[in-house]
């Protein structure tokens, strides 16, 4: 037993950290995960939430979302859009306030990502969820 003890303890450790293999390949948690990021084909048509300043039609910098990570910004926007209602409006007004009350709209846009990369027009359609600031509530 003494001889096998370190091997058994090691096997137990490896089993724990490899546990996600027994879960769905999409499993992600902390500190264990299957690390599914970039594993699945996202496709060339991409649906992305975005915040747009109505005065110039340009996307708003993610710094107003308290992050420098675009992945975090997109996820946070998507979650807020899913919740919708007063939470989404409050979120929109919060961004507009940071932009000195400028008009802001939160939308989900579908783009052809490859076309965008090649410098061609990529926007397929846009669904506006809320508008606030100068031109909204």
């Amino acid at each position: 037993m003494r001889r096998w003890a370190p091997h058994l303890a090691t096997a137990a450790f490896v089993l724990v950290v490899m546990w996600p293999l027994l879960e769905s390949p999409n499993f992600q948690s902390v500190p264990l995960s299957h690390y599914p990021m970039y594993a699945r084909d996202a496709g060339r048509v991409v649906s992305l939430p975005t915040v747009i300043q109505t005065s110039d039609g340009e996307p708003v910098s993610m710094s107003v979302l308290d992050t420098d990570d675009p992945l975090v910004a997109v996820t946070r926007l998507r979650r807020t859009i899913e919740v919708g209602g007063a939470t989404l409006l409050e979120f929109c007004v919060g961004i507009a306030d940071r932009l000195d009350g400028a008009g802001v709209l939160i939308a989900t846009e579908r783009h052809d990502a490859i076309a965008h990369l090649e410098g061609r027009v990529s926007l397929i359609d846009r669904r506006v969820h809320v508008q606030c600031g100068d031109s909204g509530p």
Partner: protein
Amino acid sequence: MKVPLLARADRWLVAPIPRERLTVLRVLVAGFAAVYVAARLPMFWHIGDRPASTFSPVGVLSVLERPPAPWVGRLLPVCVIVCSVAALTGRRWRFWGPAWALTLLLLSTWRSSWGQVIHHEHLLVLHALVLAASPAGSSGPAGGGILALRARAGSEPRWWTGAALGHAGQRSVDQPIPDEPMVAGWWVRLMALATVATYVLAGLAKVRLGGSDWLGGEILQHHLARNVLRLDLSGKSGSPLADELAGRPGLLAVISALVVMAELGSPLLLLGGTVRSVWVGLLWGMHVGTALFMWITFPYQLLLFAFLPFFAVERLPGLRRLGAPQPVG
């Protein structure tokens, strides 16, 4: 009669290592955690200000139905910085080691509980958890680690303890310096296995979710294009290098195959020597590529901390001083 393979596995797994190696690993990993959290303090500070409806708890926080008060989230990164600095010194390791690892686990789980799991922090947390249980503290009774409590002075050497393992002159491994204090090497092996496991899991996820399509390069091309688009729609420009790469399907296929090969082949890191160094280069190259082409950084991996357990770090230039004996805490 012992099977040679098992004998080799025995030697690899439980052979003592110089105490300095654990000390250097403790200083580097705890130091990384302190700097990493301090540099992102404003971001961590505001996490709890997000709408409660966007709270999506994972891991040990899954039991929560709603987020705790924002001040709890503000206190957490401060605790991690304090505990990391305390862990870095190695004093009162049986308290500060676990305190450091557990606060780090909580902070990482907290950050990932708002809809986006931050994967590059996982390995740092796993390494901290292993180190916290190991005899990585300052020399003396308080440096023995929580599991070393069972080792008594003069007792028979145990494979998991830092006590009673004698000196290098008695137990030769990795050509140590004579009379160098030795501790259980098992903990460093666990850290190495944690690194390997994360890469193997990531590689298997690509096989399970992307299948053979991943090797064709198209999936990588889509991720590159998607990333540039995401950056542009967030008011930040994507990498110009991504434009160049995305237009070369042949090169993308080669890179995709290399990525999967590097991840699934990561157990080769355990062989040591040239094979290990080549594989570290491959995996590091993958992270450099991700940073250059997608502007997504994995700091713990990119700065090579993830690969420290595969090397005799106490012998690296400038690091030997870190492992020098410290006053007992």
